[in-house]
């Protein structure tokens, strides 16, 4: 059994679209955090009184989704479909192997820990 952590970094204004796409792809376990990053997009210039600055970092949302093998591609597709605008700054997806997963409530491990429970 192969487990992967899919990390998707997307625009904040597309986060809701991504969540919707993930939901449609039956991917239910998601964490997200606000991050700042720089990925080659042009800087935006802001002015506060006499101080003009180039904002080198843009706000992004970082999704972290632990999935079993067969869900890796649907998760990637959902991140792409929901997050794409076509402009520079749409973000990146990283897929990394997972050594172990434990569900804290039950102590279940690995595949059973990333399988959604029906409440």
């Amino acid at each position, binding site marked *: 059994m192969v487990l992967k952590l899919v990390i998707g970094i997307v625009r904040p*204004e*597309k986060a*809701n679209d991504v969540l919707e796409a993930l939901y449609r792809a039956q991917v239910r376990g998601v964490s997200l955090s606000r991050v*700042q990053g*720089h990925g080659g*997009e*042009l*800087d*935006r*210039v*802001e*002015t*506060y009184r*006499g*101080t*003009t*600055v*180039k*904002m*080198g*970092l843009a706000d992004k949302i970082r999704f972290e989704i632990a999935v079993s093998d067969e869900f890796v591609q649907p998760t990637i597709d959902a991140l792409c479909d929901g997050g794409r*605008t076509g*402009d*520079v*700054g749409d973000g990146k997806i990283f897929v990394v192997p997972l050594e172990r997963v434990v569900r804290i409530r039950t102590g279940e491990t690995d595949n059973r820990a990333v399988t959604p429970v029906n409440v």
Partner: protein
Amino acid sequence: MPAEINTGDTAWMLVATALVLLMTPALGLFYAGLVRGKNTLNTFMMCVSAIAIGAVTWAAVGYSLAFDGTGDLVGGLGHAFLKDVTFEPRDGMTIPHLLFMAYQATFCIITIALISGAVVERMRFGAWIAFAALWSILVYAVLAHWGFGGGWLIEGGTLDFAGGIAVEMASGFSALAAAIVVGARKDYGRQALLPHNSVFVLLGAALLWFGWFGFNGGSGFTTGQNSVLAFTNTLLCPAASLLVWFVLDALRGRRVTAVGAATAIIVGCVLITPAGGFVSPGWALALGAAGALPCYAVIVWRPRTRVDETLDVLAAHGIAGLTGILFIGFFAQQNWNAISDGLLYGNATQLKWQALAAVAAPAYAFAMTFALLKLMGLVMPLRTSEHDESIGMDVTQHGEEAYASGEGAILVSPEAGIEEPVPVADAV
């Protein structure tokens, strides 16, 4: 100083003018809390810009059109650019004409700012400025003439103490028209669009209430009995609205909400605005309690429609103002206001004139605003692009953020000859 000026009245009106001006930034805070964080500054700036626009158009022609003469529909141009507006009081008044003009200017300003609630988060700032200037003359000045300045409603006998016609119904029904013409936000009905800072909302509402003591308490233009009555009713009526709102919230959602409370304060202040100096304190309490019901109903119903009248100006101002105007027709009491009785005290004519105002003012405000924005839409885009809307109005309209962290910001010194600012929209 001319003999007929009363120093006590003048002192109070100087303070009241400043109190009413405070209401506009307070409204900015209230509105800014209700929108998403990326639109905070733009929303606040729409209110701030109302001060810039309103004060200037008012001094130029607005005041004259509203308060010069007793033409049925609109005043004259005799006071354009403040001609003959000096220290001499107007007929029958005890404060300098100049102060009266300044006091009325603050009403024009807050009314413009109120409409912005219907179009926040998507209307272009430039288009808003143009709209605000035209609206202040075409709609506000005309309705101020009808309700305050000597037009057909006030001459006929309509009672409107502090602006149920020109401020509340005008802004509420104009807001509805503006929301229809400008159109809904792109995410409206698809995503939950929530208030980003409910503390701003409550604080803004509290400051509005504070300012409203000048708004209603000053609308008698003296320190006389009607002013004291209006001042006191401005305490009682919103308090009753708050209590009823608590009950309605609890019945509907099992919890009393803070944003609901802020809304109730506004609704209560609006309800008593037209009626403040005309109804007894007891009837003011009743108005606050009963008047909360239709406003609450519209606030619950409106988000189920396709009309993105974003911050519910129609419910909180249009419907509440209309309710207050009609209430006078039933419950005005001559032994409290020394002017006229309502239907309950045997004077049906009063109700007729209140009902006329409640039909004519909303109709005029809605139709004129609708036509004005439709015409403006032919010569300029009213709203920003979907792309800019999703990035947020603060960055795209003003090049600022409300909550800039400064992390990763690179200082650009002006001498360094940097390239032209590159908006996010043009990223390749």
